[in-house]
């Protein structure tokens, strides 16, 4: 069978709802798209641990420090599981880490921004983990089976993180005027990056990830789902959303939203965000400083005489 015929048969499998295993034949285009997508997800878990890590020492109670520490551990664990899945598609883990810390591959836009106050931790836990849950639950329909198996576990842990985020949000919103203002200020600073998170509206017929069933919903469908879930929750807490054009049209069932400045999105995901270099430098420093741990663990065990 020719390459083109095999590719057509492969595409028919996906369109028929079948899932692909790592050991199945797959066209190069599918392999590259799946690898890049899962690698970017893994990178984002590893880099996403850093903004919260910066607040472990400053968290307001021992319980909050434990929660954040455990959450950071979960995120790094997700990164490991995802790199395992990605490496079966043909790129060694060491190379993926090396490309990440030297700025050759991307990670999600929201992890390029600073965390200025405890209100930012509330926003990350509630809105950013909420946005991640919307996209990751949709990915449970993905055509690549090993990714789906790992996502089931990731979604379970992310929903815990999201609950932890809501816990902090409710505490701030039920608190003093200063606490409420702290959260509102964080929402004001983070709203545009959160809108960027879903990406610009894309042309579905030109989206290679949709073509191969690696994604099954468009950026705009996911954004609409997020807005329907979270904007009413914020309003109920008396928290305003800093987008004067944001409005729900009861006739069409669609949210209208204002331009969040896509130039900034493109600049940030290409590696020029306010915290990109600081956080990558930290990762490089950790990677170099901890090389001896990897070497020791990889060496054959020496038994005591």
């Amino acid at each position, binding site marked *: 069978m020719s390459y083109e015929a095999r590719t057509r048969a492969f595409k028919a499998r996906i369109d028929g709802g*079948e899932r692909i295993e790592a050991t199945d034949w797959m066209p190069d285009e599918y392999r590259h798209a799946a690898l890049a997508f899962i690698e970017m997800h893994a990178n984002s878990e590893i880099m996403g641990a850093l903004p919260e890590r910066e607040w472990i020492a400053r968290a307001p109670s021992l319980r909050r420090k434990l929660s954040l520490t455990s959450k950071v551990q979960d995120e790094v664990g997700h990164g490991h599981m995802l790199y395992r899945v990605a490496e079966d598609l043909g790129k060694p883990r060491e190379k993926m880490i090396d490309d990440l810390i030297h700025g050759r591959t991307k990670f999600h836009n929201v992890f390029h921004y600073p965390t200025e106050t405890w209100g930012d931790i509330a926003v990350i836990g509630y809105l950013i983990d909420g946005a991640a849950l919307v996209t990751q639950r949709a990915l449970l329909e993905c055509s690549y*089976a090993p990714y789906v198996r790992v996502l089931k576990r990731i979604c379970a842990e992310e929903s815990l993180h999201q609950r932890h985020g809501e816990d902090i949000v*409710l505490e701030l919103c*039920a608190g003093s005027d200063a606490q409420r203002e702290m959260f509102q200020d964080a929402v004001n600073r983070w709203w545009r990056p959160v809108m960027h998170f879903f990406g610009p509206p894309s042309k579905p017929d030109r989206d290679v990830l949709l073509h191969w069933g690696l994604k099954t919903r468009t950026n705009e469908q996911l954004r609409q789902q997020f807005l329907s879930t979270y904007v009413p929750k914020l309003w109920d807490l008396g928290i305003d959303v800093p987008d004067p054009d944001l409005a729900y*049209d*009861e006739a069409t069932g669609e949210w209208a939203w204002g331009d969040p400045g896509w130039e900034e999105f493109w600049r940030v995901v290409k590696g020029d965000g306010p915290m990109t270099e600081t956080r990558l430098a930290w990762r490089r420093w950790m990677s170099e400083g901890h090389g001896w741990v990897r070497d020791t663990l990889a060496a054959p065990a020496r038994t005591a005489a």
Partner: protein
Amino acid sequence: MRWEVLGRRTHDDAWTAVGAVHAPDRDLALLLAKESFFRHGEGVDLAVVLLADIHRFAEPELLEPSTDKSYRLQRGYPLGDKRRRAAERVQAAGATIDRPRPADRRARNTEHRSREAPSS
């Protein structure tokens, strides 16, 4: 030699232990496993592994947390009272924002307010 038998019910499932067989070699183990556990459409995939190659964690009691680790569990974050306190705080501040929204996203604290209306 004892072999553990693993199966997958559908292509989307992870491997699950389904039973065990005794056989002198791998091929016979696979045949016995197929005939013992997969005669009635139980799955789409089958594997065997020597029992001696499975290494069990020696201290399962260590899987129980030694200190309170409820912050790793959903139930470590009971939100009911906190939702109620936040709703009361927002009402007291007159800060609720009531704008058009999907019909199934009606304000939870609006319902709360209407429930309490008769007594106030």
